């Protein structure tokens, strides 16, 4: 009964556009969206280089990237915590317990996924790249044309990575600190509120997270078609 009651209150929070709920949702989207952007800025050029160049150590690099697919979120959190804590080598930056380090953490987390999947899809399109070169495109333009050709797969990869970023909790809680109104995102709020017994808020955020995951999934499936 308690669960049904909580669910009802959670739905009320959602439909009444509760400020606290939607602030947290907005921050989550902003942090994970920024992480996706940051990771893409790094992952796209690196993936293009690894897809269309041959050099010594390429195979080893690909293996390392694939190994990091299942990088534990708490490991990234711990690594960043040590690096950016006041005593750490990058402590001077003062970004620990800010949204910036959460963005960095999530970007680190999803970069191997973006790179690995992108390399796999671009690698299958060698003929596109070669055709682009043969019509006189620069290497950069050829890469862009190839990525454009793989646009539906690329969007799928981005959505998948965004899903991984927005649903992680380990790193966000370790380096973000779950500060109300500043670094509190959906996953950290769910973890905290449920341990505090505030099931309604946790549930309403959980429902939104599920809805976001559902929407991402639908878009990804449509793109695959």
């Amino acid at each position: 009964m308690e669960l049904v009651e909580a669910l009802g209150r959670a739905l009320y929070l959602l439909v009444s556009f509760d400020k606290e709920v939607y602030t947290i949702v907005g921050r989550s989207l902003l942090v994970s969206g920024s992480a996706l952007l940051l990771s893409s800025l790094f992952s796209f050029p690196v993936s293009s280089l690894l897809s269309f160049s041959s050099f010594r150590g390429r195979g080893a690099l690909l293996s390392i990237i694939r190994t990091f697919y299942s990088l534990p979120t708490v490991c990234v959190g711990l690594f960043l915590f040590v690096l950016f804590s006041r005593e750490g080598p990058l402590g001077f930056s003062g970004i620990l317990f800010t949204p910036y380090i959460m963005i960095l953490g999530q970007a680190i987390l999803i970069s191997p996924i973006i790179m690995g999947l992108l390399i796999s899809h671009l690698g299958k399109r060698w003929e596109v790249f070669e055709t682009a070169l043969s019509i006189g495109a620069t290497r950069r333009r050829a890469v862009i044309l190839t990525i454009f050709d793989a646009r539906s797969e690329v969007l799928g990869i981005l959505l998948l990575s965004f899903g991984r970023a927005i649903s992680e909790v380990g790193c966000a809680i370790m380096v973000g600190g779950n500060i109300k109104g500043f670094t509190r995102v959906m996953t950290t709020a769910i973890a905290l509120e449920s341990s505090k017994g505030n099931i309604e808020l946790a549930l309403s955020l959980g429902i939104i997270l599920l809805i976001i995951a559902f929407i991402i999934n639908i878009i990804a499936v449509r793109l695959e078609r």
Partner: protein
Amino acid sequence: MIRAEDIWHSYGRGYVLKGINLEVRDEVLSIIGPVGVGKTTLLKILSLLIKPKRGKVYIGGESSMDLRLRRKIGFSHQNPFLFDATVYENVALPLKVRGEYDKKRVEECLHDFSLWEIKDKRARELSGGEIKRVSLARAFVQRPEILVLDEPMTNLDPEGIKILERKIREFKGPVIMATHELYKARGLSDRLLFLHDGVIYEEGKPEDLLDSPKGIKTALFSGMNIIEGEVRGKEEGINVVDVGGERIYVASERGLSGKITLGIRPEDVVITKGEKKSTRNTMRGKIKNIVRRGPVSEVEIEGAFPLKALITTKSLEEMDLREGEEISVLIKATAIKIFEDEIQAQGKLKDKI
């Protein structure tokens, strides 16, 4: 002018190309050879799309993988890829990536390749022949200095072939193409190059290479009957060779001895019904198989040794030849070619390896 100097290439295990040297001036050079001998790899290296493991390609005296040099070459793939756009956009793309988009030039090219009617069709809606035409238009619209075409006639409809032949004849500059269409290559090329196992096995004028090849592999590729026999001596100044128990008369200026390899062009094998004996080489045989190829038909004959004959389909029908039928086979002693030892290409290669 395009020149390749000592080109070696491998994709991992073993070399696909083994020391290719070639120079193409304002002429049409066709590269022929069985599948998997490195034709496509060589074309891609000449087009600066692949960097060879060893050796250099010179375009007008310059050698680099530079974009500026790459843009001098118009390349068409064997299995072309078209971008997910309209025919018009695909043909315009080479100009757009150069920042030289010229509507008039694109439209001209679309008309040249009879693509105007389908210019708004998307790539995925096109047939294999249309895709090939778009790919060729894309190579020509760039107004390249050098044309490199990989199997340009494969999948192309008769009208497309006519257009391509005209465009190649009009082109001023080196044209290099790989092809399996020996008869088309013959009419269109100034020079043929037979690639085998990564080396230039034989090269020369089309008529020399196809009618009287020096190497056995070239002869086999051009469809010649290759038979092995042993010289038994001379009769009235003509060599007598034992092939599978049959006495074959072979005209030769020099004396022959021991085991030899002979070549007979299928069009020099004459088939008659009955037991006519108008030439020295008259044998009995049985028709094993008949393959009709338009105006010409190929007849496989079983006898002391297997033979292929080419006759006009009209003669085939007039003579009412059928599979399993007993026939007489006539071959002129002067139409039989004697092969020397394997040509020098292999020897040169051994020195390099």
